[in-house]
C-alpha cells in the first residue's frame, strides 16, 4: 500500500484561457480514505483522472509512494479505478470482467479463480458470475465494477462518483458497504463525489474544491465546525448554513451584531478576536447553522442577549426534527432546525435564540472566516 502526494499540480486544456485545476497540494497518507468534493466543474474529477494517468498533468509533480509517476502509464501505477459509468466489458461474463485484468498480468488461473470468487463473495454477486452485464441491474453492475478493482489488489483505489447512477436507497446501502470494504482491504482510497453527505459519512479527510482550487482539506468534523470560508460553510451541511448580512458595533464594552430585526451580543472570546482584527463598525456576514437556532424555553432563559422574534413562513416536520423557515431576519430566509415534537406552526411569531458560541463571522470582501487563521 502507498500514500499519494500532489505537489503544485496544474491542469490546463489546450485552447482554454484558464486552468481547470490550479496549484493542488495534497499529501494523502497510506490507507487514508480521502474524499474530493465540490460542485460540477470544480476540477475534482480532473484531479482524480490525473492521479490515474488518464489526464496529462500540465505542471507539478505526482507521487505514488516515493515514485514520481507523471510519465508512468496507468497500468504501471498500481491503481484501480471505478468510474461513474461502470464501463463493463459488454461481451464478457461477470466472471470474465473481473478476471480480465489479472489474466493480462499473467496471474495463474487458480489464483485468478480464488480472487474473483472471494471478491464476488464480499460483494454478494456470486450468483451473477455467469451473467453478461446487460442482464444486470445498475447496482449489480456497480458491484462488478468494484469487484474488478478489488481483485487487482492495488496500492490505491480511485473512485469517480461510483454511486451517482444508483437510486437513493441503493446509494445509501452501497455507501456503507464501500466504506466497510476499503477499511477491510486497508488500501488508500481517493473518492470523488458532489454529494456532501457522501463525503461527510465516508471520508477520513475531505477536500472541498471550487473553481479548480482547494478551498479546505480537513476532517469532516473540522470542515463542519470550522469552515475556512463562505463557500465551504455553504457547501457542507444540509440544510445549508444561514448567512445574514449585518454590522458589528461596540455598545457598553460588548460587541453586537446588528441586522434587520436582529441585535445580538457576541460572546467574549469571539468579541476579542473581532475587536483585535479591527472589525468593529464594519459590515460582515454572520454564518449560523440551522441547529444553532433554539426555541426551548431553558435556552431562551439562559441566553437573553441573543433572543429575536421571527415569522414562521413554512414548517417541515421530518419526524425526528422540524425545519422552520423564518422571514424578517436579515434579507433572506433563515432556517431553524428544532425538535420534531415542536408545537410551532406556520404563521406564528415565536421567540428564538441563537447559540452565539457556534456562529461564524465572514469578511465581506475576502469571504474568509474571521475566527480562523
Amino acid at each position, binding site marked *: 500500500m502507498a500514500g499519494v502526494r500532489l505537489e503544485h499540480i496544474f491542469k490546463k*486544456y489546450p*485552447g*482554454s*484561457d*484558464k486552468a*481547470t485545476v490550479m496549484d493542488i497540494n495534497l499529501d494523502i497518507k497510506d490507507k487514508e480514505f480521502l474524499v474530493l468534493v465540490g*460542485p*460540477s*466543474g470544480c476540477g475534482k474529477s*480532473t484531479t482524480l483522472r490525473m492521479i*490515474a*494517468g*488518464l*489526464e*496529462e498533468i500540465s505542471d507539478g509533480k505526482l507521487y505514488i509512494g516515493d515514485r514520481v509517476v507523471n*510519465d*508512468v*502509464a*496507468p*497500468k504501471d501505477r498500481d491503481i484501480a*479505478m471505478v*468510474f461513474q*459509468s461502470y*464501463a*463493463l*466489458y*459488454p*461481451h464478457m461474463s461477470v466472471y470474465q470482467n473481473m478476471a*480480465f*485484468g489479472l*489474466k*493480462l498480468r*499473467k496471474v495463474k488461473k487458480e489464483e485468478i479463480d480464488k480472487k474473483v470468487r472471494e471478491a464476488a463473495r464480499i460483494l454478494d454477486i456470486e450468483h451473477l458470475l455467469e451473467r*453478461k*452485464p*446487460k*442482464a444486470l441491474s445498475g447496482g449489480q453492475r456497480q458491484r462488478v465494477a468494484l469487484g474488478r478493482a478489488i481483485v487487482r489488489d492495488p496500492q490505491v483505489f480511485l473512485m469517480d462518483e461510483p454511486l451517482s447512477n444508483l437510486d437513493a436507497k441503493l446509494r445509501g446501502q452501497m455507501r456503507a458497504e464501500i466504506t466497510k470494504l476499503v477499511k477491510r482491504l486497508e488500501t488508500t482510497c481517493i473518492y470523488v463525489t*458532489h*454529494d456532501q453527505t457522501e463525503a461527510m459519512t465516508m471520508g477520513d479527510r475531505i477536500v472541498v474544491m471550487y*473553481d479548480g482550487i482547494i478551498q479546505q482539506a480537513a476532517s469532516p468534523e473540522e470542515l463542519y465546525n470550522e469552515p475556512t470560508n463562505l463557500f465551504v460553510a455553504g457547501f457542507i451541511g444540509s440544510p445549508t448554513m444561514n448567512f445574514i448580512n449585518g454590522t458589528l458595533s461596540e455598545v457598553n464594552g460588548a460587541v453586537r451584531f446588528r441586522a434587520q430585526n436582529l441585535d445580538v451580543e457576541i460572546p467574549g472570546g469571539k468579541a476579542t478576536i473581532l475587536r483585535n482584527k479591527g472589525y468593529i463598525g464594519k459590515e460582515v456576514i454572520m454564518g449560523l447553522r440551522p441547529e444553532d437556532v433554539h426555541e426551548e424555553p431553558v435556552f431562551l432563559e439562559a441566553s437573553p442577549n441573543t433572543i429575536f422574534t421571527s415569522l414562521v413562513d413554512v414548517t417541515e416536520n421530518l419526524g425526528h426534527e422540524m425545519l422552520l423557515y423564518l422571514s424578517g431576519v436579515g434579507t433572506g430566509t433563515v432556517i431553524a432546525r428544532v425538535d420534531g415534537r415542536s408545537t410551532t406552526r406556520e404563521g406564528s411569531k415565536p421567540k428564538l435564540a441563537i447559540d452565539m458560541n457556534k456562529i461564524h463571522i465572514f469578511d465581506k470582501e475576502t469571504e474568509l472566516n474571521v475566527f480562523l487563521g
Partner: protein
Amino acid sequence: MDSETLRHSLEQLTGKRTGIKQLGRQHTSALFGLTTQQENEPVVHEGKMWVPIFENEGRATAIWMELEGLTPTEVRLAHYAAHNFAIALKATGLKEEGEAEARQLSAWLNAQLEQEKNDAEIPEEVTLKGRLFGEMVPFLLVSENVHQPQMTYRSLMKLLRNYFENDVLLIPLQDKEWLILARKELLTGGDDKDDEEENPDELLAQTCMGLHELIASEWVGVFHLSVAQAIIPVKGLTGSVALLKETIMLGRIFQVGDYIHLPWELHMERLVNSIPDHKRRLLLGQIGDYSVVLGDKEMLLTLETFFEMDCNVSETAKKLYIHRNTLLYRLDKIKQETGADVRSFGDAAIVKLAMLLYKVTKRK
C-alpha cells in the same frame, strides 16, 4: 495471408480446434528451446501441435492445433504450412506478425481518404481483403499519450487480441492513430434475442466505454475514441473511417474534457463546422452578443447541461447538483444579459447555435 487466415484455414481443413497465442520468454524457451527458428519438427505439448510463427526479443507468437484423431501425414502437412508461413513472415522484416498486411491496408486507406473517395471498394491486392467481408464494428483511437514507453503495434494488438478473443484487426493509420475492427457478433452477443430490444446506439456506446476503460487503464492514459455503426468493411470502410476521423476532430473542438465521441451525438456540430469560418463569424455577430454568458464558465456549464437535459429544469438542477431556484435564477440572469429565454424553444435553438459557433470560432 495473415496468421488469422492461416489459423482459420487449418481449422477448416482439419476440423480440429486451433488458436494463436502470444507466449512469454519462459514459455517460448520451454516449448521451442533457446531459438525459435531452428525447429523443423512439430513441437507437441499436451495433445497440441505448436508452431512458432513470429518471434521478437525471445517472445514467440505461436499457432496451435489439437492433434487427436489426425494422421501423422496430416500433422506434418499442417506443420509444413505453418512453418512456411513463419519463414515468409520473417522475410518481411517487420517487428510483428500481421503488421505488414495492416500497413498495406493502411496505405490504401490513407490514399483513398486523401482523394476523398469515401465509397471505394477494397481491391484484390490488399491481403486482408479476405477478412473484411463479415460485419465489423470500426473504432478509431487517437492517442495523446505522454507516458513511457511509447505505444507499439505489438502491445496494443496483444491487448486487443485478449479482449476480442483474437478476432480483431488493428490498422495503424497515422502516427498515434489506430483503426480497430472487431467482429460485430462478438460485441452484440450474436443472435441473442435480447439484443433486438436493445438500442444499437446504446450498445455501441457501452462497448466504446468498455474499450476506452480497458485501453486507458491497461495501455495508455490519454486518448480519444470513437465508434461507428457496424459495416461490411470491404465496401464501407473508407466512408466509415472518414466519419470517425471527423467525429474525433469535432469532439476535440466541441467536447473538451471528454474522450469518447459518438458520431450520432455530433450532428449539429458537424453542420456548424461545415460553415466557412468568415460566415460563422458573420452569423455569430448577427445572432447577437452572447459573449458575456458564453465566456462565463459557470453559465456555459449551466447552458450545456440544460440542453443536454432537454431543457428540463428539474433534471438540469439535479444533474448540476444545485437547487432548482438557483437554476431558475441563472436562467433569468441569462435572459437579462442576452434577452433570450432558453425555456422557450426558439430562443433555446438560437442560444444553442450561438454556443456552437462560439466554440468553433475559438471564443473570439
